[in-house]
C-alpha cells in the first residue's frame, strides 16, 4: 500500500485555533493533507484555513493562485479558501451549522532539500457559489528544507467535527 495515514486530527470541543502536524516522518515520498473544515455558528463566522510550512510565516514564504484574487506571495498556503468555512451565504443562520469546506494539499518530494515548489489545491463552497472564488493552488516560496511541520490555523478557531488527515505516499 503506497498511501499510509501518518496522523489524523479530529477537532473536539476544545476547538483550538492552531493545530500542528509535527516531527513529520521522513520515510515517504509525497505528503497529502486532506481537510474537512466545519463552519462556525452563525452567519459570517467562517475563516480561511491556512497552512504554514516549517514555521515560516514571513510574508513572502508561500504563494497562492486564485481565479478571483489573482496570484502572488502570502504568509501561508490555503487549504480552504477565503471564507471557506462560512455558513451559508446570507441565510443569517444562527443555529448550529454543519457546513464543511474541503481542501487537499500535495507536497511532492517533501524530504528533499533545496527545492522550493510544492503544489497545493484548496477549495470552498459556502459563501460564493462561483468557481472564481476557489483557490486553485499555491506553493512554498523560499523554504528549501524538508517538510517537518505543518501548522494549521484560522483567525478564530477550528470548529468541533472538523477533521484533518495527513498521509504519506511512497
Amino acid at each position, binding site marked *: 500500500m*503506497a498511501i499510509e495515514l501518518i496522523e489524523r486530527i479530529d477537532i473536539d470541543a476544545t476547538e483550538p485555533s492552531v493545530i500542528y502536524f509535527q516531527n513529520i516522518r521522513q520515510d515517504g515520498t509525497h505528503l497529502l493533507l486532506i481537510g474537512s473544515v466545519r463552519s462556525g455558528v452563525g452567519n459570517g463566522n467562517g475563516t480561511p484555513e491556512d497552512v504554514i510550512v516549517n514555521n515560516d510565516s514571513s510574508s513572502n514564504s508561500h504563494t497562492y493562485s486564485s481565479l478571483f484574487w*489573482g*496570484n502572488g506571495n502570502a504568509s501561508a498556503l490555503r487549504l480552504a479558501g477565503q471564507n471557506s468555512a462560512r455558513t451559508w451565504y446570507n441565510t443569517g443562520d444562527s443555529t448550529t451549522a454543519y457546513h464543511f469546506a474541503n481542501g487537499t494539499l500535495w507536497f511532492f518530494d517533501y524530504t528533499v532539500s533545496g*527545492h*522550493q*515548489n510544492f*503544489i*497545493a489545491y484548496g477549495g470552498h463552497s459556502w459563501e460564493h457559489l462561483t468557481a472564481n472564488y476557489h483557490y*486553485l493552488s499555491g506553493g512554498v516560496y523560499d523554504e528549501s528544507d524538508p517538510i517537518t511541520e505543518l501548522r494549521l490555523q484560522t483567525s478564530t478557531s477550528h470548529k468541533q467535527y472538523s477533521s484533518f488527515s495527513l498521509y504519506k*505516499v511512497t
Partner: protein
Amino acid sequence: MAHELITSYTFSGTQNSLDITSIPTTYKDLQLIFKLKSVTSGYNLYPHIRFNSNSGSSNYFQMEMRASNGTDYYYQNLDSQLYLYGGETDSGKFTSGHLELGDYNRDSGHSGLIAMTNSFWTSQSFFNIAEAVGDITSIQVIADLSSTKYFSSDSKVWLYGIGEA
C-alpha cells in the same frame, strides 16, 4: 484499493524527453506525479506530455484556467500534445503537479484524462483535460519540442497504478 508505485525516474540533466513504456494493464487508473525544471537559467520550461507517441494535431484537448497578475484567464484548444505549463524553472523553481489517467486500459479505446499542474514562479494554476487516444501503453514527457532544452538532473517523475482492472 491498490495505489502502487510502478516506476520512478530521475533525469540525467542531458535529456530532452522520457518515454515510459511497458505500462502494466493490471490497474484501473494511472497517476503521474512530476517535478520538472530546465537546466537553462531563466528559461520558461513548458513540458509536454503525449500518449502512445501520438502527435496528431487535434488529438489532445485542453482547458486552462489561471490567474495571472490578478486577472483570470481561460483558454481551450485542440493540440498535438498536453502542455504542462511550467513557468520559470531555473534556480530550484520546479513546475510540479499530478496527472490522473482514468480508465487508461479500457478496451473501447477512450479515456478521459485530467491534468492539474502548478507553475511555481507565477503561482499560476492550470487544469488541463485531454481527450484521449485509446488505451495508454506509453507516456512521453518532453522538455521542449525543439530538442534544445533539457530537464535538470533533479527533475523526477513517478508513475502509480491505482485500483484493479
